């Protein structure tokens, strides 16, 4: 199984991922509000981290969606939102512990990472190497392992 992994210490906050995702999904704009990956840049503490859906094994957004609009893509393992079924109730947004689901105020539906069908645009635009799309284990802790700092890796 492949997933997007994040090595926070490599991120330079260039926001190429944000711009690329926004454009890939909107085909109109690179504005961050259309992006499924968001870079949080806390200049004051010199900390920057890109965040995008982890396609959690226990996907609460999927569980909580009252419209059955969120399913798992059997091919990519991506948790995806079907915009035709999304009511726009935002329950998924309230369910995601990481703030990785966003709202499209034009179409009034939630949107999130769908792994671009297996070729994530954010990763090909991550010039720093912080984002990778790679094989990970099938256990629920796969991301933790991959995002932990070097010295604590097993």
């Amino acid at each position, binding site marked *: 199984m492949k997933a997007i992994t994040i090595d926070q210490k490599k991120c330079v906050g260039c926001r190429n991922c944000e711009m690329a995702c926004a454009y890939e999904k909107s085909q109109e704009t690179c504005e961050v509000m259309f992006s499924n990956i968001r870079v949080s840049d806390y200049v004051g503490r010199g900390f920057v981290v890109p965040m995008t859906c982890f396609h959690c094994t226990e996907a609460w957004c999927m569980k*909580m969606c009252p419209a059955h609009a969120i399913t798992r893509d059997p091919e990519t393992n991506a948790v995806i939102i079907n915009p035709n079924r999304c009511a726009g109730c935002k329950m998924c947004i309230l369910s*995601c512990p*990481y703030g990785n689901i966003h709202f499209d105020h034009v179409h*009034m539906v939630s949107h999130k990472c769908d792994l671009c069908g297996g070729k994530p645009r954010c990763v090909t635009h991550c010039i720093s190497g912080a984002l990778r799309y790679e094989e990970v284990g099938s256990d629920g802790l796969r991301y933790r392992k991959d995002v932990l700092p070097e010295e604590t890796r097993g």
Partner: protein
Amino acid sequence: MGRVIIIGNSAAGLSALESFRQYNSTDEVLVISKEGTAPYSRVLLPYILRGKLPYDCLNIREEDYFTGLNAKCVCEEVLHVNAAEHTVVTDRNTYPFDKLLIASGSHAVSPPVKGLDQEGVLHMWTRQDLDRLLPLFASSHKVVVIGSGFIALQAAWAAVSRGLQVTVIELMDRIMPTVLDEKGAEILTQKIREAGVNLMTNTVTEEAEKTADGRFLLHLKDREPVEADFIIVGTGVRSNIEFLKDSGVVTERGIPVDAHLMTNVPDIYAAGDAAMGPTVFHDAHMTHALWPTACEEGRVAGENMAGKDTVYEGSLNMNVTEMFHVTVASMGKFRDSETEKSYLFPEESGYGYLKICYEKNRPVGGCLVGSWEAAEMFGRLRKVIKDIDTDAVPKEIFETVLSETIPGGVC
């Protein structure tokens, strides 16, 4: 091979079935629903009414859903449960069980007002309600909504969206007491009125009189009567537990359950609107009648029924919707009276009215009448309040993000 019965095929029942099957693929599972065998989502009713979603989106599982999960679903009404004999009696059959989940949900109730039992007075709670409301929305001009809670206001917003003239009548002096604090309610009230709704608080409905032309005249205490083509009553729901009388399962307003979602009877569990489960705030038994709580309780019940020892961390009330051009959301404790301190986001944050509440410097909830961006914060808040294990993001990263987005978020 064991026999499992699930009463109810909405949020809690489905969630339980899916979780059960993650750990047990062999036991026989029977789902009994009096509302038909196709699961639907009552949360979607207002969205379908206002045309956001087509009608067929009401169904939230595929046709082969039950067979795919090696389960059977029948449309029967449960009349009685016998805990001692481990049987469920329906209007057609008697079924023995080894494990039972009562996820029978709730029904909408009306206030004791004369005339609310007539044709043309509806709730917005079931598929049947929707089927009756849809033609009324299409053909009518005026609607009165009694009540100003979450459901009532969603019904009002759906009616406004469809171009109906809407009057909302609320007995109390404010709207949405279970979802918003006073300030939030005040702001939403403004938004509702700006949308052209005649919102009347402190108003007592004395009678819904049916006029000769089949319309209604609502007589109000100390106020001019209000006309309506039809009436929607949104004044709350009650657990569906009548069939448990003399069953051996203890009931109160709902069915009290422990942290394994088990009733007083081993092998019998309850979840969702019918249950009174523990909350994250250490209430032993509380009914939220909320979709997410039903999902969570269903999951825990299903896992325990499959033999997994899952302890529920407790329900956390959360509400969210977009209505009257604003995102309305709340979670946990958000009233100043029940929390120690609160933080109000400044205007320049662009979030609108967003308040986070704390107890012992730990976030315990918040409420929002504002931008959808602010709703993202509630997900993080939920994780903190429920103390869910971070399996995706390392603690130090999560806490940094949290402390930068929610003041005092790290505890």
